[in-house]
């Protein structure tokens, strides 16, 4: 049993069987993380470079921890302070790193498709840790793992994805994954932040009314307003956004049921999510972070097994 792919570039290319395999394997790694010694020697012969061309806290620490828990050797690279500022190209940078015998590349880049481009040109296994506004596959996997842990199965569950859908790679990866695994998806947010084609291409529901989405769903995955990717005015002010689309405690309490609140982080407190919601018992935001390490261990473990096939 192994993954049908050599890289993890996006959920789009993954078979439902691959997704299930990753989630099942992650469950065993979660057990490893509860032990007194939270480390296994599986990847002790593997070297991994974390190539971060864009800022990150959670994903980067989570990947690095996952690599260390698997006993892999790691190198960290961030674009600032490197020769990228001297004009070195992406391919040159990566080839130089690979010539020092590196087996896997974990990569975040602000350009959509950057990891796909690398995958065509280098022999190492590539894990996409977020590319532009395209995909963030490990985030979708850990979201799915967290939902599964809470609700048992994904199939038939109702998930609302709320907020800045247009600029969110988390949203796209989640939509791919959830629809592949048989969950129902609704996206909600301001019309200016929801791409038009979503409904037709994925067969998911679209609403501009957050309350309606919350009343319908079992799980609400609330996304961050990505101000750094917005170069035009898409809503008038953060305060207005919070009033119309933010999740507040009174709104949550007025629902007839207890839904699960998720957020990929970092939270804009008081914008898309109020503090008393983010810190409430319904929120599993910190569980998501914990599960992230187990899921990334599973991805790295399953991809590393194909080493011999590459060489």
């Amino acid at each position, binding site marked *: *049993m*192994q993954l049908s792919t050599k890289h993890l570039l996006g959920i789009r290319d993954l078979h439902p069987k691959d997704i299930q*395999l990753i989630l*099942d*394997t992650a469950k*065993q*790694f979660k*057990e*490893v993380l509860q*032990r*007194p*010694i939270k*480390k*296994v*020697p*599986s990847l002790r*012969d593997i070297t991994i470079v974390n190539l971060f061309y864009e800022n990150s806290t959670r994903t980067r620490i989570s990947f690095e921890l996952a690599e260390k828990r*698997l006993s892999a050797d790691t190198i960290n690279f961030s674009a600032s302070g490197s020769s990228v500022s001297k004009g070195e190209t992406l391919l040159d940078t990566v080839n130089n790193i690979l010539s020092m015998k590196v087996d896997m590349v974990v990569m975040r880049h602000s350009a959509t498709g950057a990891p796909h481009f690398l995958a065509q040109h280098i022999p190492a296994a590539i894990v996409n840790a977020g590319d532009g506004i395209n995909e963030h596959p490990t985030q979708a996997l850990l979201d799915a793992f967290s939902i599964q842990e809470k609700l048992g199965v994904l199939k038939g569950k109702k998930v609302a994805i709320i907020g800045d859908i247009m600029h969110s790679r988390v949203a796209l990866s989640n939509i791919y994954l959830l629809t592949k695994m048989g969950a129902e998806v609704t996206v909600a947010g301001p019309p200016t932040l929801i791409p038009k084609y979503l409904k037709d291409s994925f067969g998911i529901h679209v609403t501009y009314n957050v309350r309606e989405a919350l009343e319908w769903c079992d799980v609400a995955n609330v996304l961050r307003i990505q101000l750094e990717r917005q170069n035009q005015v898409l809503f008038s002010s953060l305060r207005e956004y919070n009033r119309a689309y933010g999740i507040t405690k009174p709104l949550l309490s007025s629902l007839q049921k207890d839904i699960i609140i998720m957020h990929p982080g970092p939270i804009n407190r008081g914008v898309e999510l109020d503090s008393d919601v983010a810190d409430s018992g319904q929120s599993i935001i910190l569980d998501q972070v914990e599960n992230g390490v187990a899921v990334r261990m599973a991805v790295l*473990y*399953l991809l*590393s*097994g194909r*080493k*011999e*096939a590459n060489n």
Partner: protein
Amino acid sequence: MKGVSTIMEEKQLRLTLQRLAHELIENHFPFEDTCLIGIQPRGIAISDYIYQYIKEIHPDVNIPYGKLDITFYRDDFRGQIHLPNITDLTFSIEKKNVILIDDVLYTGRTIRAAMDALLDHGRAKKVELCILVDRKFSRELPIHPDFVGKSIDSIVTQKVKVYWGDEKKVILYESV
């Protein structure tokens, strides 16, 4: 399957497992600071039986019993991915006598991995090995069982399989 020969029928298999259980009782009763650990996946049927049998004879002794998965500790996982099984160790093995239980002892590599895996759960006082079928003269590592159900002579091309479903038996067959 070619060249199949039965090593143990159900009746003998049960007798052998019961004898192993009695040997454990003889050496470790009343099981103070002693725990049983079955190795996933195929050692579990054996360890379940032995554990239940000891509990039947001595219902009031409390023996910690766990299951250990060694997938992440294997030395042969490149090339072929082995899917992990559940590790279920709810107690500490610190300063305990650990009895590892598996179905077949062949090269010794599984037991090597199991000892590595055990180290991550604490420092055991002593580790012993209880095996249903010992394929002697085929070890690749200096590992020796303490409790043996049955010793057999076999060659590299042969395999041993323990059936523990509706039909219970141990067979030896040609793998090529």
